[in-house]
Structure formats: structure tokens, C-alpha cells
């Protein structure tokens, strides 16, 4: 990863989180599901990502997945079908 360029991430945690936790996760989108919650959005850089992970840790949430979402920026994306 280019460490200092923002990228979109998706995190999944176990448990259903209330929307109010979005502020806790620095303005990322909190999408509660049935048994899990998705936390997604643009994360500034690597340091910010690890900060978010630390918050997940500190709340005692069980992390299920961390995924970087391909940017939809045309200049960075490959040719799509």
C-alpha cells in the first residue's frame, strides 16, 4: 500500500453495534447486520488504520475481517470488463 494515501477499508466485527459508534470510529460508516457489523469507509493512511484496529481491540470486539476495497478512482483502477 502506498502508506500515505487514503484508501477504502471494510472491517467486519462480531456483534451488532449501534450507529452511535460511528463517531467512535472516526466517522466511518457503521452498518449493523444480523449478527455482525460492518465498519467501512475511507481511512487516511496506515497509521490511521492501525488506530482503528486498536479501537476494535480496546472495545473487546471480535474482528472477523479486514479488507481493502479496490478504489473506484479511474486513474488507479485497472480496465474493468
Amino acid at each position: 500500500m502506498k502508506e500515505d494515501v487514503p484508501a477504502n477499508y471494510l472491517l467486519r466485527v462480531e456483534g451488532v453495534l449501534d450507529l452511535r459508534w460511528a463517531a467512535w470510529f472516526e466517522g466511518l460508516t457503521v452498518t449493523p447486520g444480523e449478527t455482525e457489523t460492518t465498519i467501512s469507509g475511507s481511512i487516511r493512511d496506515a497509521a490511521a488504520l492501525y488506530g482503528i484496529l486498536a479501537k476494535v481491540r480496546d472495545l473487546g470486539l471480535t474482528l472477523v475481517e479486514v479488507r481493502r476495497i479496490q478504489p473506484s478512482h479511474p486513474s488507479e483502477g485497472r480496465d474493468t470488463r
Partner: protein
Amino acid sequence: MTDPYDSHRHGPSSSPERDALLATKFHIPQLHSDLLTRPRLLDQLEQAVAYGLLLVSAPAGFGKSSLLAEWARNSDRPVGWVSLDVDDNDPVRFWRCVAAAIEQARAGLEEKILPLLRAADQLAPEAIVTAMVNELAARPAEFTVVLDDYHVIESQAVQRSLAFLLEHLPPGMHVVIAGRSDPPIPLARMRARGQLAEVRAHDLRFSPQEAAVLLRERWRLRLSEASISALDDRTEGWVTGFQLVALAVQGQADPTGFIKEFTGSNRFVLDYLTEEVLERQPAYIRSFLLETSMLERFTAALCDAVTGRSDGRQMLEVLDQANLFLVALDDERRWYRYHHLFADALRTRLRQASSERVAELHRRAAAWCRDHGLVHDALRYSMAANEPNWAAELVEDSVDEILGLGEGATLRAWLSALPEAVVRSRPRLCLAQAIAAFNAGRLDEVEPLLGAAEHGLNVRHDRLPAPHAGDQGALANVPALVTNLRASLAWARGDIEETIRLAQEARTRLSEDERDPLLPVQWNLALAVWMQGHMVDAERAFAEIVKIGRSAGSSHLALSAGVFLGRVQRSQGKLGAALRTHQDGLDFASRSGHPAVVTIGTAHIGLAGVHYERNQLDKALRHVEEGIALCRQLTSSQPLASGLATLAWIRQATGDSDGAIEAMEEACRVLPSRDVVSLYHPVPADRARLLVARGDVAAAAGWVQERGLQETDELRYTREPEYLVLARVLLAREAPDRASNLLERIGALAEAQGRSASVLEISVLRALGLHAMGDRSGALDTLARALALGYPEGYIRIFADEGPTMASLLGALIRTTRKAGPPGAAQVPVDYLGRVLRAARSPHAGARSTAMVEVLTEREFEVLGMLAAGKRNREIADELVVTLDTVKKHVTHTIEKLGAASRTEAVARAKQLGLLE
């Protein structure tokens, strides 16, 4: 226990709150009354602690701290504790805290380590750890130190130095690291060696049986076995979950129903239960909880300041009684905090209130903390309240203290947290940031900051308000200090001319009422004066700084200034004075109980240099090795380079020429820039000189050419080392007349400036030059005068290092003296001449002690000459007008002293040594 924030001149504005808060870090947490003791875990801990390192790694809320506290309070082992926080990422502060924690379990560490920490910005953190390990190993004891909340540590410097400690754990020391993540230090090796024990979430979870005891017996909840089992399942044995349930269940009409709903829900446990708990609370408690949740730690008074109420004391009691996640930080029940998770959940809810309200709460907290001397907290709340100017003012007021404590990392962190515009608008902060950058070696960052400081000064037409720290503060006189820091930059670059100019300019900016000029300015002025060759003034200036250092109890300052003082004295040819300077430095450091100060290495190297000059090679070697080992830990590499260069000459003198060039190459490598050659960085020139001594004249000549040295250049004291190399090259290249001309010019300057050591060296070279030009008697005369000059202070190597030609000249001189009776040279005792000659003659003779071949007396010399002429004892007795017995005695002694077995052998030996022709 010693106050770990052991203050000196610029002491902290101490406050009772601050001291009390500080003490809480080292307080082993209170045990909660309804704690459930789990013997299996306590046993596990007791055994695990026997290992070198015990890791207690589990997410928040698993009861790590409670368990460790219970163990610590009940164990027979001496246990020290420190609860780490985010400010401890400054390595100096971190180790200060660890030392304080260790002190609780094993007294006597702090007094050795604290002085070291004050000079810590000059040292690598490993140096601090080394000193700690040495001290602990010197008086081993069994003890355990607990580092709680280690997950807050992110600093690489701290991680590395901790890893270093674990690698070199002194016998008897046990470490416990407790945190929410595994620390990023190499654990694999410790695991493999069986030195690591672990207690993890798996171990900490409550089994259903343990949960039953906890919930039913301890907390007296009437729950069915099915409910308990479901709870244990849902929370996965997480004790905080149980606590929250216990609170939520109180006053529920249908506890079983509640539990069923809870365990059946997928909602995030913490959130669900916190909501339940909060809903149970009356409004006045709920609002108190929410409003005070933004505080990291608090007293009743701080709560009142924030809530605007006056019931803080009662509220805390209520919360404590209700077991609402209040954690007492000390025994006096003064400072508290909330359980981290509970606080997090509360804060999330608080955020939903108006942001202005939240900012106001932070503002109140910041003001109270500031008023009570709690700088770190006040800063955090100010920034959170969006009041960067408050924060900036706090930082400005605290700079002196922080720098005095050696916590440069903290200052840098604070400054980078402030918005750049705010820093730029405050000249003192710009200056502080510049100082911090300079100390950290980030030299490129310094000038822009200084420019910003000046710009800020110009923009403010009014004068800066007086600094809170008073006139002696680190930021007292901004214009002078800005200029002075530029002088330091120039010095670091090796630009001597600029250093001198700027130092003098800085002095002009001092105001009249600054009778004692600020120390940094004084320092640069002393350097400037030295560089200009005003030796007497330089000696006085550095001696003054040494005195200041001693009276302030700063070994580090005294020793650093001592390095320069010794150099100045050596330039003046005062070997004895230089020796005393360095010896006094060592004595002072050990008297004040600061043997751990690494700067002591510089004194050893200074001593080594003097002993070398006097050909006391064993002593020189001992000191230089000690000095080099210590100086490797300093961040400034100049002393190390100097030591390695001295080592090189010692090896050369003892016949290890390859070892010599090896050491000299290393000396050149450790310097930051090899291009800088000057008085302060003579090593490159020294290397060239060594090349000549080894006979590698071509390489030396190549260096001379690279440096662009010409005989016709204008000569300056600061470049003298280089031009002396040029002279040597000329001599070696058989251009003695050119060499002589150059030497005369260098010598004239040296003479005028009273730099006797240079005068001596130049005389020696001139003697060689005269000899090369065929003027033997002129050479001997010059040499004789040089010896007369060198004798009082015991100079030997300055002659001996010049090789076989010098040796033969010395031999000739001795013979001439003996024959012709006293001219000027007879001011010098023959035995001194003998020593010099022996040193010059062969490397090995110089290395061995003079006991090997004792110095011959005047008489014995005469006898030797006659023995060589084949005279028999009777003839000798007649000639000398003494008894036969006397002659026999002289002959025996002479033969013995020469280590021979017969007269013939003695004569042969003498010829070998050049005592005879």
C-alpha cells in the same frame, strides 16, 4: 522513595495534586471487595513469575490488572508496579518510571539512574538500560516489576530498549508485561529458551463453575443454572460482562427474562449492557456519569469543576458503593478513574450530546488541570476542547522543565500536536522546537524554525511578555538564543568562521542585566575563543563552565566542558594540567555517585591521550579501552573518534602498525562527515599523519592534494593539523627547504598564541628538516632546545613517533652531551634523553616498562664508552680517578642494566640501542 521527578534548578511548579497523581502510577491497584479469588490463577502466576518474563495478554476487561494486583499484594516476593500511560512513550520518561517501579521492590537504583536520565538526550536509550542492568547486576536481588497497560506503548525507541533489557536481564529480576496486545518485542527467542511464561484470555475466562460462584455467591444474584450457563456462553467468560449484567439485573422485575433476552440478542455486549445499566440509574447519577466520562482520571474536586455541581465527593461514594466501575487509584481515595470499557461506552453516548457542550466540559477540565499543575492532562483536554492557544501557552511554560528532565521526545510530541500556525505565531515555541530538533540531530529542520521565530518576533511590535520560568529559562532571551543556536549549527557543520561570528553576535544580543550570560551562549563563546587561538581566554572560559557544571551537580556538563579544557591545556603544552582536569572530572563524577554517566568515557580518553604523550602506554591503553567502550553509547561520535585515533597511535607505538591503521580507519568512519577537518575534527589529518609514519607517503600526499593544501596558503590555527601533515609530506618527499619555510610560518603563529605543544612539534620537525638539509649541528641544537621544552611536562612520543631518523639524532645528541659537557641541552637529565631514545629506537622497547633496561647513570655511561674502547678496569679507574672497586661496581651495574651477560655483550647491546656509535 526518591521523587522520580527529582528537580533541579528549573524545578517543576510542584503541586499536591500532581504529586498525588504521579504516585498513583506506582500504586498497586486496590482489590475490589467483591473480587472472586481464583486460586488456580494465583498459583499459575506464582509459578509463571519465576520465569524471566511473564506476559499477561488479553483484551480489555478480562481482569488482568485485578488478578496481578491480587497476586502482587499477597505474594512474598518484592513487587514494583507501574501503570503505563500514553505519555510514557518518551523513552526517558518510560525508563524513569520503570526505575521508580523497581525502586519499590529493590531500593538503591534510582539514585544511580536519575542523574543519568538528566543527560539522557545525549544518550541512546540502550545506554540507560545498560547502566540499570549493571547496577542491578552489581547487587543482585530477587524482585519483580509489573508493567501494566503496556499496549499504550508505540514508541520504537521504547520497544527496542525494553527488548534490550530482556536480552540482558540481571539475575533475580523478573518482569511482567500486561496489556491488550502481545508487545512487538522478539519473544520467540525467550520462548525457545524457556524464559517466557504466558497467561492469556483463555486462562482468564471464567468457567461456568467459576461464573456460578461469582454471580450467585459473591454478587448474590438469584439465577438459575441455565441462566448462568447461557450468560457464560454469551459473554464467553468475560468478567466485565458479568459485572455489567449484575448491575443491569438489579431492580429488574424479571431477572430471568432479562437474561434470556440479553443472551438471545446479538447486540454488542458492552453497548447493550451499558444501556441497561444507565437506564437503571436516576437522572442525577446518569448525568454525572456521562459528564465525567470524558475525564481520564479525576478527583471529586475535578468532577465538580466539570459538572458545575458540588456533590462530587458524595457521587463518587455512591458510585463506589454501587460498584459502578469506579477504580480507585490510590489508598487515600483521592484519585479515581472509570473502568476503561465503561468509560468508552459512556463517552460514545456523551458524544451524542451537543459538541459545544462536550467542548465546554473539556475546557473546564483543562482549566482545572492547568491550575493544579497537571500539565499533561491540561494539554490533552485543551486540544480536545479545540483551544490550541491554551495548549500552546502550557507548552511554553513547561519547556524548561521538560528539557531539564531530558524528555526531548515529549516536547517534540507536544509541539507536533499543536497546529503549525499556532507554533509559528509564538517565537518561543519555534525556538523550543528548534532546540528539540537540534538535540535530536535533525539539523535540517532547525533553520526554518529559527526563521519562523525571528519572523514572529518581528511581527510582534511589542516585546514578548516575560517568560514564566524567569530569566534563566531556556527560552528567556529569544534573539540571543536564536543566534546562538545558529552558531551551534555552524559548529556542527564544521564551519569555524561562522561559529565564531555568530557566537559573538549572540553575545551582543544579551541584555545588560544578564550578568551571567546564558550557558548555551557561554559555551559557544568559549568555542569561538578557542578556535581563534586565544588560549588563555579559552582556558578560563572552559574552566568556568566546568565550575558551573560542578556546582549544578551536573557531571555531564562538567565532563563535556572538561574535554575542551583538557584540549586547550594540551595545546598550551600543559600535560600535567590536562591530566588533572580529566582526573578531577573522573573523581567528581564518582564522588557524586554518578559512575553511570557515560560521558565519563571522554575523561578516560583525555587521560589516555596524556599518558600516551608521556609514553605510559599501558596506562594509556587501559584508559582508552575503557573510554571507547563508554563513548560508543554517546550520540555524538567525536569523542569516540578521538579515542580510536589515540588507540591507533598506541598500537603504532607498540609495533602493531596494521592494527593502528585499522583503528584509525574506524575513527574516520564513525564521524558523521569525513570532509570536515579542523581543530575539533582532527581525525582525518591524524590519519594522514599515521600514513606518513607507516611510510605510506603516497597516500598521505594524495590526501593533501584532495584537501587542496598549498604551502602558500594563509595559515590559520584551526587548520594547523592539516598543514603539519603537509610539512611532513614535504619532509618525506625530500623537500626539506620547503618544509622548513612552511614550518617557520606555522611556528610563528603558534609561538605568538602561546601554543607550546605545537611549537614543540614544529621544533621536532624543523630539526629533522635541518638534518635533511645537511645542517647537523643546527639540527642537534634545535632538537636540544625542543627537548628542553618537552622535558618539564614529560613529552616523549612527540619525539619518538618521528621514526629512525629521530632516533639517530637523539643518539647523536646523547653522545655529544656526554662528550662535550654542558651546553643548553644539559638542562635535560640524561635519563630523560635515554627514555626518549629508547622509545624512538624500537616500538617494543617503548612498550615494555623501563624496568627492562634501566636507565644508565652519567657515570655508567662514561664507563660504557670506555668498555667499548676496550679499556680494562684498571685503566678506567685511573682515568676516572676512582677506586678499582668502584669501577667494578659501575661495570657490573652497566652490564646488568643493559640486560647483558658480559662486557662484550653489553657493548653490543649498547650499540644496538644507539647509545654508542
